[in-house]
């Protein structure tokens, strides 16, 4: 009896769906995602609301997997040699270990240090100068940059359209096999904005979990950090997303003017984004041009190397006083911000 009822209802509903004028518009029809495999995005306890909320780009397993395939695909570059992952290595928290500036096709060099990728949903702007205001608009830069991937968007679409696997994946992710720039960028945003790093030893310490023990030296380092560094590198994200002139002398070979390039405001000359310090021990070298290879070098800069630009940030203008022991203790604390769970998370690794 129940079966009959279900049959009547099912047949009836299928009938209704097929009535003219009652169909959903196929151009906006989305396939029902397979929720059993869905990737999840959750806000760690005590963290602020993210800036990117996947509004207009609902996170699905198929969208995430498409983004991951694109991220690891060298076909996004002119000569099929460079993928996003070439400069964004998972083991380095998606920075480029040991490389001061970005490397593109034909061994061309960029001008800036490859930023890490994690907790990107909380960022309010992208790149060292903050020129990009939405994570969906970020990938077009390295793709079109002549010293990185050197492609045009139509060329990328042509390459991807020749691959039936991609057609099938775009169909799964967006409900049709149309490949356009918007879908490419939304898929990449799903992959990148899903990367959350909140499992360092520091995090476990904050949450009072097992494995969250800090040594006396690390605890002293944390206390010094909160005294001397936290105004810019604010917990829990370890950045306040601001732009500051942190007193770096100009590298005349790069001659990078920083944020003024975006705002045309003289007050922004030589200002760069304050980066997160999470995973900092995994992602050397440091600063916007990768000039420092060690954390000791970075702290020594803040202690004794501040160049007196007219607009140098008041928080570092007079240097940050610390003894040699303080410096070692701060560094020992910074090493507790490494999240090996994140850097080994198979969801973010190259697809098999």
């Amino acid at each position, binding site marked *: *009896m129940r079966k009959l009822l279900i049959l009547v209802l099912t047949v009836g509903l299928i009938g209704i769906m097929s009535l003219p004028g009652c169909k959903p518009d196929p151009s906006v029809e989305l396939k029902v995602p397979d929720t059993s495999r869905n990737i999840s995005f959750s806000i760690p306890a005590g963290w602020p609301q993210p800036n990117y909320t996947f509004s207009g780009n609902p996170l699905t397993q198929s969208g995430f997997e498409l983004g991951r395939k694109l991220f690891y695909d060298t076909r996004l570059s002119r000569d099929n040699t460079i993928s996003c992952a070439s400069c964004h290595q998972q083991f380095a928290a998606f920075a480029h270990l040991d490389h001061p500036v970005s490397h593109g096709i034909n061994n061309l060099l960029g001008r800036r240090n490859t930023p890490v990728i994690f907790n990107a949903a909380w960022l309010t702007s992208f790149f060292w100068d903050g020129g*990009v205001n939405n994570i969906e608009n970020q990938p077009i830069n390295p793709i079109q940059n002549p010293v990185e991937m050197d492609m045009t968007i139509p060329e990328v679409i042509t390459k991807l359209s020749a691959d039936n696997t991609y057609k099938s994946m775009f169909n799964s992710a967006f409900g049709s096999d149309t490949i356009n720039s918007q879908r490419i960028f939304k898929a990449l945003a799903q992959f990148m904005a899903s990367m959350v790093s909140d499992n360092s030893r520091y995090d476990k310490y904050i949450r009072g979990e097992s494995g969250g023990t800090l040594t006396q030296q690390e605890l002293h380092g944390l206390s010094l950090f909160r005294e001397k560094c936290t105004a810019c590198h604010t917990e829990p994200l370890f950045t306040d997303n601001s732009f500051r002139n942190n007193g770096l002398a100009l590298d005349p070979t790069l001659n990078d003017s920083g944020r003024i390039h975006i705002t045309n405001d003289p007050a922004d000359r030589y200002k760069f984004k304050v980066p997160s310090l999470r995973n900092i021990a995994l992602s050397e070298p440091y600063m916007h041009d990768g000039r420092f290879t060690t954390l000791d070098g970075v702290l020594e800069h803040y202690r004794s190397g501040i160049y007196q630009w007219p607009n140098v940030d008041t928080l570092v203008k007079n240097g940050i006083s610390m003894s040699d022991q303080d410096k070692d203790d701060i560094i020992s604390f910074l090493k507790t911000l490494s999240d090996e769970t994140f850097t080994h998370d198979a969801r973010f690794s190259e697809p098999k």
Partner: protein
Amino acid sequence: MKSTLIKISCLVLMMALASSCKKKPLPVSGSTLPGKVKLEFFNNVGASSLNLNNQWYINENGDSFTVSKFNYYISNVVLTGPNGASYTETESYHLVQQNDESTRSFDMIDIPAASYDTISFMIGVDRLRNTSGAQTGALDPLNGMFWDWNTGYIMLKLEGHSPKAPGGNIAFHCGGFDGRNTAVRNIKIALPQAITVTQNNTPHVHLTADVLAMFKSPNKIDFSTFYLLTSTGDQVKVLADNYANLFTITYAGL
């Protein structure tokens, strides 16, 4: 028992049927059904049509120049009428390109049947679409009207040549959507005569852009000193205040 269940299932079906077709408009008389308006853009230099093929023109300052590219965004189109009628186009983003005739006119649809005597629109793209991530259609970055390094749309782009300009080229890429140097301009123009929209009457409105207005007033442009604009800043305002006067309505009617 059996018959009760079947009755219930039939009732559920009827309810589903009724609710699934709510969007279907009720039949009404022809004169009150919504209609369309066709907007047509004519890009001129003075009295003649803009010719992208090495035609020489002279600006207000007396500088000779040619135009090889002339594109602009028209967005957020609104029609209002003398009797309170109002129409706001949905997904109202259009890229007008002088080198592509198909982009120089478009139909606005689902306009309530009424009389309209004023059109307003933006030259450029509103803040929201400059900050909400990847877009498509007229706003697809592959249209070449998007700055990737400094996210946002180029609202208006004019390129060409002038012997007055150092290097011989002029290029004005007007972008930026924030603050005093925004490249967006809100335009509101009365139609020369009211138009009446019905299901069967599709009025045409002709918007004529005079390229000379770009370089004329309130800021007379001298190509020897102002010939290149490819970023945000004070110079954007200089040109945008001029192209606020770009359009006149040269026709409105059937």
